[in-house]
């Protein structure tokens, strides 16, 4: 009687992990059929043929699947490891965006005649020159941690607003994630990636100047993907190690942004990596720093970080490959970019075996204190 309706729903339930289906599938199917079938054979025959899981029903199963695959407390080790790795990766990308925001904010303050928000013309011109110089040196922007559009169609003021407002938004998103305000982080992050989409679409439609592949790639890899991946920050996600992540902001600014700025200000911009190169260098250094822990096989949680670094290396590597298209007429830059890519892949290979092992040996913390007390 319920054959095809049941089949359609079971197909949707195929999204769920096997261990979960084993325990709950029959019950879910029974409840689903109860919600449709009336007990009247004629009506039920028609419903069975015509009805199927609604989009809302499919969405609820999908959301459940995501929560289970990117598991939190109480999840099987493999799913917990993936959940933690995705959450750490999102935090790492948000950290880079937040430091980029801090960099932009400091740049704006320096250009805004300290203490007053009304800029002096010369300072604004200096900012404009700085932005243009940065944009000219590479489409992926040297000198700034995170690339922003060179000068927006409206001129220098929209550019400064964009850099300040969106940069600050990333700082807020990072803080919200670290402090556990996941919903606020998602909302602000969606708002933060929208101006870039508008900018890209407007440039694409007017063709003045038409955005290149790298601009879309940046938006997708460093805006959209992390925002979508924020779905891993669900109710069961263990809280982030707040103090470490918060300290990482000033530490990263001092260790990464300041040296880059110093290179730029002292006229050594030839030494500046583009954003893609910077990502490769940072992931390489992180992999090398993590390698002793990954090889010790005893450090708790090392596998999750190995998986995190492998994911970050994949994103940085993909972006490095895409940005190679920008340097087709510059053999030196191609050679440097390929060297960055290969060194990063070699460093990632050092932690990859630990990342593979982590799928089987990462215990998840218990779900709730209440469960422990029970």
């Amino acid at each position: 009687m319920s054959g095809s309706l049941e089949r359609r729903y079971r197909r949707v339930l195929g999204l769920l992990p096997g261990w979960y289906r084993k325990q709950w599938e029959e019950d879910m199917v029974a409840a689903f059929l109860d919600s449709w079938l009336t007990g009247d054979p004629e009506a039920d025959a028609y419903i069975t043929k015509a009805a199927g899981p609604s989009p809302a029903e499919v969405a609820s199963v999908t959301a459940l699947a995501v929560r289970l695959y990117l598991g939190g407390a109480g999840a099987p080790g493999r799913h917990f490891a993936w959940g933690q790795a995705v959450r750490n990766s999102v935090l790492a990308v948000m950290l880079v965006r937040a430091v980029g925001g801090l960099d932009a904010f400091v740049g704006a303050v320096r250009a805004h005649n300290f203490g007053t928000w009304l800029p002096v013309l010369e300072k604004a011109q200096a900012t404009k020159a700085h932005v243009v110089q940065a944009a000219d040196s590479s489409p992926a922007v040297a000198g700034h941690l995170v690339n922003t559009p060179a000068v927006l169609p409206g001129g220098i003021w929209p550019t400064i607003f964009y850099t300040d407002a969106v940069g600050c938004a990333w700082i807020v998103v990072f803080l919200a994630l670290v402090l556990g305000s996941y919903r606020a982080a998602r909302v602000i992050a969606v708002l933060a990636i929208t101006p870039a989409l508008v900018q890209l679409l407007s440039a694409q439609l007017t063709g003045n100047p038409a955005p290149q592949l790298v601009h879309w790639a940046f938006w997708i890899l460093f805006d959209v993907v992390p925002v979508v991946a924020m779905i891993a920050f669900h109710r069961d996600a263990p809280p982030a190690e707040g103090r470490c992540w918060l300290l990482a902001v000033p530490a990263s600014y001092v260790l990464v942004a300041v040296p880059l700025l110093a290179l730029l200000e002292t006229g050594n911009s030839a030494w500046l990596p583009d954003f893609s190169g910077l990502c490769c260098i940072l992931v390489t250094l992180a992999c090398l720093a993590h390698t002793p822990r990954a090889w010790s096989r005893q450090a708790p949680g090392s596998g999750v970080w190995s998986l995190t670094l492998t994911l970050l290396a994949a994103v940085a590597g993909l972006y490095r490959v895409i940005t190679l298209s920008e340097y087709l007429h510059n053999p030196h830059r191609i050679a440097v970019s390929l060297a960055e890519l290969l060194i990063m892949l070699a460093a990632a290979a050092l932690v990859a075996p630990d990342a593979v092992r982590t799928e089987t040996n990462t215990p998840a913390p218990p779900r709730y204190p209440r469960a422990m007390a029970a």
Partner: protein
Amino acid sequence: MASQPMTGQSFFVLTALADGPRHGYGIVGEVTELSQGRVRLKIGSLYGVLERLSAEGLIEPDREEAHDGRLRRYYRLTQDGRRALAEEAELRASTARVVRARLSVTGTEATG
């Protein structure tokens, strides 16, 4: 690590089981009625909640019954579940009392 606050969905599901065991779709109907139509659980959402509550030890399977060729599994509250629900109900009631008291004060000022 502080204990997590109970979600609205969990609260309604536990309340639906407070007066006796229910099967999956029975819980959906009861939650809709209890919430006066404000909470309409999809099956995927319901089993997400049931899995959590079960892992927390707040509910447990009661029995299985055949119905139209399908096996319905019934769930019931555990002692911990009953206690957690009572605590949550008390918390919500005390919050409601505070809200009413504040509203009556501002209402008096507004009308006075």
